[in-house]
C-alpha cells in the first residue's frame, strides 16, 4: 500500500463520515481511526419517494368488459395479484366473441377492477399494473 492509497482511504472516510476502518489482507492488517471532529457529517440526501411507474392494460377493441374467471377455467383476478407478461386479465366482448385484455408487462395489479359489463372503446385503460422489480 502506498501513501497515495492511504490518502485516498482517509479522504473517502472523511467524505462518508467513517471514523474507523479495518483493512485485513494476507500480508497486511491496517486500522485507521480518525478523530471524531475531523469527520464531516454526512450530507443527508433529500428523501424522494419515487412514485412507482403505472402501466396500463388497455382495451384491444370496442365492446363490454367481461372479467376473467367466470367460464374460462381461470381464477378470477384480484388487486394486488402478481401477473405474468401476456397473461389474460379479462375480455372485451362483442356478443359471444371476445378479445383478451392482456398484461403488457409482468407486474402487480393496482387500482380498481373494471365493472363487468362496462362499455369500453379501443385503447381505454382497463387495469393498471406496477412493474415487477
Amino acid at each position: 500500500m502506498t501513501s497515495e492509497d492511504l490518502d485516498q482511504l482517509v479522504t473517502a472516510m472523511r467524505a462518508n463520515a467513517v471514523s474507523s476502518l479495518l483493512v485485513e489482507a494476507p500480508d497486511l492488517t491496517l486500522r485507521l481511526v480518525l478523530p471524531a471532529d475531523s469527520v464531516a457529517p454526512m450530507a443527508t440526501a433529500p428523501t424522494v419517494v419515487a412514485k412507482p411507474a403505472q402501466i396500463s392494460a388497455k382495451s384491444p377493441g370496442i365492446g363490454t368488459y367481461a372479467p376473467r374467471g367466470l367460464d374460462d377455467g381461470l381464477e378470477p383476478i384480484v388487486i394486488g395479484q402478481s401477473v405474468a407478461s401476456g397473461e389474460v386479465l379479462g375480455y372485451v366482448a362483442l356478443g359471444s366473441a371476445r378479445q383478451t385484455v392482456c398484461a403488457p408487462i409482468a407486474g402487480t395489479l393496482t387500482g380498481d377492477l373494471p365493472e363487468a359489463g362496462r362499455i369500453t372503446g379501443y385503447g381505454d385503460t382497463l387495469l393498471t399494473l406496477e412493474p415487477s422489480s
Partner: protein
Amino acid sequence: MIEILSIPPLATVQDLGRDNHWFQGLGRAGAMDPVALKLANMMLGNEAGAATLEIPLSPASFRFSEDQVFALTGAACGARLDDVPLPRYWAGLAKAGQELHIGPFQQGGRVYLAVYGGVDVPEILGSRSTQLRESFGGFEGRILRAGDILKPALTPPADFPSNGVSISLPELSQPRGETIELRALPAAEHDSFTDIALTAFWSETYRITPQSNRQGYRLHGPELTRDHVGELRSHGIIPGIVQVPGGGQPIIQLADSATMGGYPKIAAVISADLWRLGQALPGDSLRFVQTDLDGARSAERDMQELFSTLANDCKAMKRLQQGWR
C-alpha cells in the same frame, strides 16, 4: 412446425370424419367432440372441419419452432404458454421457441388443439381423420407420440389479434358430477325389450365404465332384458346407436363405431348430443331422454343457430378491428 414434446396415449389427428364409405365397411372416425373442433377452427378462421389434434388425456407439451397461431377448445385443462395461463376456448399467437403445456382436465374429457389452416396431413377418402382400426389417415395412420412434428397447412396471418381471442358459450356441458342428458330415438329392436327394461332405460341413470374408448362406451346400470331372445342378423350401425349385448348392459357406439353389429339396438342418441359423450369420462352418469325425429331436427337447428350466432359475432369483431388498423 410444432414438435410434440410429450403426449399421452390415444391422441390423434381428427377432422369431422369420413362419412361416405359405410357401404364399404369403413366407419366414420372423426372428432369425438365435433362442437369443440368446429369452435377451435372458427376462432382461427379455418374451415369448420379442418384437421386438429384430439387429446383425450393429460398432460401434453408442445414446442413451436416458428411463430404460429393456434386454438385450444374442449376441456378446461390449465393450459400454459410458457408460464402464462391460457383460458379455455382461446386462440392466439405463439412465438418461435415457446412451449405449450396442457395440464389436468378440470371439466370435460378431451382437448382440441387447432393450428392455422388445419394440421397438414394428407386427405384420404375425403377426410384427414385417423382411422385407427384400419391404420390410415391422420398422422401416418397412428396415434401421436413424442418427437412427432406437426405442420400447419397455412402460414399464420399477419393481422391475427396479438392479444388473442376467445368466445363465451352458453353452458354446453353439465358441470362435473351432474347427470348428462342424452336425447335419443327408439331404435329397431326397442319394442322387443320388456316393459320393465324400457321404463328403466328411459328413466334411470347409467354410469360410463372404464371399458370405454373412441369406438364406444360401455355403460353400467339397470339390466335390460328382452321379451324375445335369439340371434339377430347383423345390421348397419352408426355412432349414437345404443346396443344391448347379452349381459343386459348397454353400449353406445361412438366415432370409431363399427359399421355392422348383431346386438339388439334399443335406441339411437341424436347426433346433436353426441359431442356431450366426447367430453364425458368414465364414472360420469348419463340418462336417456326420449325424443322423436322432430325433436332431433329441432336440436340440430338449435346447434346450427348457435354456430351461426358465434360465427357472426366473430366476423363483426374482425370487421371492427380492421376499422382501426
